[in-house]
């Protein structure tokens, strides 16, 4: 027999809000970890020697080829057995989501880097710049700006995929909704509310992305393209 209790709306909303906070914190740490790894990987793939390039490509290909849930299980359940290193669920969630995002971010940055035309590189070389000076002063400032829309889009994906962390026992937004449903047996109401919470986070982000694309895009080039979900 199923017993169900109703939960007052303000309490339910507070629970969902707490879940949403965890979702945001998890997504921010994950996207930053992804940035920290993804940008160097993109540079390795573009400017590295043969070996570095191959290492980066294998890293990227592997992480893009494995489902996030499987990455989570490898990190959370297998690592302690393999190397005796256990991560807390939250840390495992950040690492899993972060390294997977780093693979996608490296793709984003790599195409930004490659979009800086060869002529500008020739001009910079002709001025006597070193490769590092060219990366620092010519390539990255343009590549990063051109990457803004795709990067914001990646953030939206990371934000939504935090829900998979419930498999590690993280009490984020979806997990809170599941919890409410298990008490009340009202899936439509609480999953629906959770969905609205996600939308409320994502929609402003797409506006922000378009605004940033225009604000920080390279002048006179029509700005960056629009981000659509």
């Amino acid at each position, binding site marked *: 027999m199923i017993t169900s209790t109703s939960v007052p709306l303000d309490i339910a909303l507070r629970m969902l809000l707490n879940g949403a906070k965890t979702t945001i914190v998890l997504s921010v740490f994950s996207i930053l970890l992804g940035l920290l790894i993804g940008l160097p990987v993109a540079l390795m793939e573009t400017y590295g020697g043969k070996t570095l390039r191959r290492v980066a490509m294998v890293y990227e290909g592997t992480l893009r080829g494995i489902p996030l849930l499987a990455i989570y299980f490898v990190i959370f359940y297998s690592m302690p057995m393999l190397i005796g290193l256990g991560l807390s669920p939250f840390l495992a969630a950040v690492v899993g989501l972060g390294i997977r995002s780093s693979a996608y971010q490296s793709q984003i940055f790599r195409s930004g880097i490659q979009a800086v035309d060869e002529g500008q590189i020739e001009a910079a070389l002709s*001025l006597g*710049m070193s490769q590092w000076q060219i990366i620092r002063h010519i390539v990255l400032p343009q590549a990063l700006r051109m990457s803004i829309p795709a990067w914001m889009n990646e953030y939206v994906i990371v934000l939504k995929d935090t829900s998979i962390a419930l498999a590690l026992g993280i009490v984020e937004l979806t997990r809170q909704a599941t919890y409410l449903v298990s008490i009340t047996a009202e899936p439509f109401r609480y999953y629906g509310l959770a969905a609205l919470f996600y939308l409320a986070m994502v929609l402003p982000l797409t506006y922000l992305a378009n605004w940033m694309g225009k604000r920080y895009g390279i002048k006179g080039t029509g700005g960056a393209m629009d981000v659509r979900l």
Partner: protein
Amino acid sequence: MSDSDRVLIIRNLTKRFGEKPVLKGISFEVERGETKVIIGPSGAGKSTLLRCINRLIEPDGGEIIFNGTNILERGVDIRKIRAKIGFVFQHFNLFKHLTALENVKIGLKVVRGMSDEEAEKKAIKALRMVHLEEDAFHKYPAQLSGGQQQRVAIARALAMEPEIILFDEPTSALDPQLAGEVLDVMRELAKKKVTMLVVTHEIGFALNAADEVLFFYDGVIWEKGKPEEILYNPKRKETREFLKRIADLSVGGP
């Protein structure tokens, strides 16, 4: 003529791409203060020649003596050499994320290590030399006309106080009116005795600004001499044929 009068001496320069020889032993010299113009058919390797001079492309053999140093020797710091050789490209190649002024400043700051203030002063001076309109100083390349962009590119090269400036078809991507404003600037530089090596199809510029014209054909300097000699009275058949083709083009085709 003493060595110090010659900025550039090129001896027997060779370059092949795979099986295809592009430069088959090029030799010529550029004196200080001189304007030398290279003409010749498209796709024959004139751009390759210019890019070999600052080693954007690595030549296979020969000597490039720049200010007394063979820059193909081992142990030469090519970045120091490049900073003294200006390069102006067919497609301008301005840095798209920087304003006109910043495009000129960046080499001074990053390569020459100048302070922002000092770089700004020099950059403004260079932009005035190419007659860039003051209201364009803070515009981005995509907001400038082709002629303005190319003049900024010339200023970017000038500001570095190079020993020589290499021009790779600087007006080929411009319509005639915009080409005119760029050629005017180049004529002024020639008068001011800026040393220039110019690859171009602009016969008018060659006639009234060049000290010597080289006809590049089949991977070598086929013929060279005073502009009037080469352009009005060339000795070799290939030179005549090339000039006739250009003349036909400029009056709307044969």
